[in-house]
């Protein structure tokens, strides 16, 4: 037992050591924590590979993959029609719910999609209108181009078609704008009357996720489809992929799904 085990490890090592190179992943700040973990696991397995993960937002992911300034672009929304012509190769690596979060001191537990829409379009501006205290609502949104924002406004119908059939983002101008999932969470955690939306994978005790249409925000409900606000995580590549990138994506889509399962919804 012992000996053969040792043998396989050394054998494995030689093949693993053969794989070397560098990967730069950039884009969605919702995907970032997941990429970080996946990369760590991959680098542990192949010590000669180095993977650099950085944020920016989903649009940065699409653009940097297209411009080839990143090897892999990460996006937390579907690629838009206008971006399709860039000819990027897409890999769905996970699914994620978007949690609607409020400050832990907030009594509101449950919101309907309609209410959420009205809050984010600025029709509802006081918590008492949705069963909370008589306090103004501080809406916290993401920057233009965020994947989370894109998915959120689409599902909650904050984005509407106008007369010409063009989609229009109706997010209220009275919203604070923060440039990352973490920043939204931080702002909501620190501001008593705030409401925001973040990747479900980033949820922790600092903020409180409300039920949407009575459904709790968990991986299970999102996977089951009862929790309405969910979107895919994508990896995007442009043109011929290098050996390492291929190996990494292969890893993410298979072994890596174990890691995905911990916080997100596996695609397997």
């Amino acid at each position, binding site marked *: 037992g012992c000996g053969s085990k040792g043998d396989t490890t050394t054998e494995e090592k030689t093949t693993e050591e053969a794989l070397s190179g560098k990967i730069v992943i950039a884009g969605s700040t919702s995907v970032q924590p997941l990429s970080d973990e996946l990369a760590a696991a991959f680098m542990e397995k192949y010590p000669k590979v180095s993977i650099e993960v950085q944020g*920016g937002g989903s649009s940065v992911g699409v653009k*940097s993959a297209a411009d080839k300034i990143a090897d892999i672009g990460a996006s937390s929304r579907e690629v838009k029609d206008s971006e399709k012509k860039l000819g990027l190769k897409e890999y769905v690596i996970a699914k994620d719910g978007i949690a609607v979060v409020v400050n832990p001191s907030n009594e509101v537990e449950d919101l309907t999609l309609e209410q959420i829409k009205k809050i984010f379009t600025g029709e509802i501006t006081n918590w008492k209108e949705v069963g909370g205290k008589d306090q*103004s609502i501080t809406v916290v949104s993401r920057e233009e181009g965020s994947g989370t924002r894109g998915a959120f406004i689409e599902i909650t119908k904050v984005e509407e078609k106008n007369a010409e059939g063009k989609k229009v*983002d109706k997010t209220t101008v*009275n*919203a*604070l*704008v923060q*440039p990352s999932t973490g920043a939204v969470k931080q702002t909501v955690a*620190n501001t008593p009357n705030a409401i925001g939306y973040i990747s479900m994978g980033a949820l922790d005790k600092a903020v409180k996720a409300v039920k949407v249409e009575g459904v709790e925000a968990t991986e299970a409900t999102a996977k089951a489809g009862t929790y309405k606000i969910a979107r895919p995580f994508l990896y995007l590549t442009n043109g011929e992929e290098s050996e390492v990138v291929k190996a990494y994506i292969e890893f993410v889509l298979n072994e890596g799904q174990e890691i995905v399962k911990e916080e997100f919804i596996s695609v397997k």
Partner: protein
Amino acid sequence: MKKYEKIIEFILLFCATVATLSVFIITLFIFKEGVPILKDYGLMNFIFGKTWSPTNGYYGAFPMIMGSISVTLGALIIGVPMGITCAIFLAEIAPKSVVKVFKPAVELLAGIPSVVYGFFGLNIFVPLIRTHILPIVQKINQDAYTSGYSILAGAVILAVMILPTIVNISENAIRSVPVEYKQGSLALGASHIETIAKVIVPAAKSGIITSVVLGMGRAVGETMAVILITGNMPKVPGSILDSVSTMTGTIAMEMGYATPIHQKALFATGIILFVFIMLLNITATVTMKRLGAR
């Protein structure tokens, strides 16, 4: 011998040119990328348009321009009187021993990276404004509301940031006022304070103005600290407790977006910023020349 001297001179000249050339390249780049949208969208529409919503095709930079102006103005209102007072204190009033401690301290303040100020503002000022200043304001105006992310928070932090610039340059200007002026005034029976107010500060005004302009440049140009504390709300502010987004902040946050037109709009914002700063510098130079000539 002569030849290699010529070659060296040429290399040196080349290096001097690189510095200049880079300004032209930078200017060229920014303008090349930004001018088309200013043309298509209309310069006036861009500058005075009240809606910034690139995904919807609205590129009105007015909220950001107002954001930058209001935060900067706020910083100047707080920072300039404080800075000039400190400069007077250092140059005219403080005993040597105090100057020895005070001056390095102010210089230290100048060296601290702006993010540290931003972090401090985020942790201290934003909550402070929400929990302590808002209730006071609400006593006067029931409807007042703020999340704390506000012009006020940005202005306070920027004021602290520009303070060293104003103090250092103004102090030098005040110190370089010839001592004869001071003696002349004192010998007429003027008090020290009168002498400072009526002779020394007026004689140092061109230096003081320079310091304010430089401070202003620094405030307009600051990016990350402002992103952290002003809330980045692309809306024309109505009060100092409102959140705003600034030109610099918007560029930093939205840079690198997929749609080319959106990116061009950011370059156009860069042009506005660029022109703004240039105007500021030119005004400063002209004022200084006028004051110097007198």
